[in-house]
């Protein structure tokens, strides 16, 4: 089972993704964190997400690039991957990232995660509507995230968008 949760910044998507995962995965839960812990903003977000997850029985694994190379020690009821926009930025911008092969690297990584659990919830981000002009590399980032979202949504069992903390159903069922 693959579930995609999207939304803009500060739209409540993390809280919904956790709630969806917890309701579907009663047993072992893994939180797969993709954010590089650099800078004050990142620290603030990581701390916020830690508080959200506290007491919900998540194991946490940090994985900022190369999802496909991740070796999990056991099978999980539910895995929460948070989030695609950070993972993609790491793959494109970090020295150890996949660079031009970011799209394929992330899709194959997610394909490896799916059989490792009953329910995989992937959090992604709506970054497509500020209408601002960007440099070529940023445009490539936006385009790649859009293609990733579309590719995952196509085979996801459900797609949701969080808007002002309200979970809107984009699609349920394939």
């Amino acid at each position: 089972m693959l579930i995609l949760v999207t939304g803009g910044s500060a739209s409540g998507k993390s809280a919904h993704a956790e709630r969806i995962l917890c309701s579907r995965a009663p047993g072992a839960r893994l939180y797969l964190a993709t954010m590089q812990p650099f800078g004050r903003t990142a620290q603030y977000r990581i701390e916020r997400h830690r508080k959200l997850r506290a007491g919900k029985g998540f194991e946490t694994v940090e994985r900022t690039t190369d999802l496909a190379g991740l070796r999990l020690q056991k099978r999980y009821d539910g895995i929460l991957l948070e989030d695609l926009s950070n993972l993609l930025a790491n793959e494109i911008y970090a020295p150890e990232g996949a660079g031009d092969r970011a799209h394929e690297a992330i899709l194959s990584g997610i394909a490896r995660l799916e059989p490792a659990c009953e329910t995989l919830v992937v959090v992604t981000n709506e970054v497509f509507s500020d209408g601002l002009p960007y440099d070529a590399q940023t445009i490539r980032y936006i385009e790649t995230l859009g293609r990733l979202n579309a590719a995952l949504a196509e085979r996801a069992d459900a797609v949701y968008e969080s808007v002002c903390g309200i979970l809107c159903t984009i699609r349920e069922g394939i």
Partner: protein
Amino acid sequence: MTILIIGGAYQNKNEVARRYYPDLVRVEDLHVRVRETLAAGEDPMALLDGLRGKVTVCDEVGCGIVPLRREDEAWREAVGRLCCALAEEADAVIRVLAGVPQAIKGELPCL
């Protein structure tokens, strides 16, 4: 009754607020008020009290690339969190796209 109307810029949100909630006091451009509040060094979440019992209109500003300037990023975050808090209390949340209102919480009143 507390109502939140959101959507992108220039989607006729204020017109929807006027048409569907003529009897409520209207607060327009909440995203601008949040920026002013931050600029004054105050907590935008304190605006929540003054929005109860009114219809509030706010641009959805979170669907873009993380802004480079720290104050822009903080503003975007504050607008999102305030809208989440207001939406939780609101009797209805209406999202307007191309002038068409859709209730994502509660119901649109019949005209």
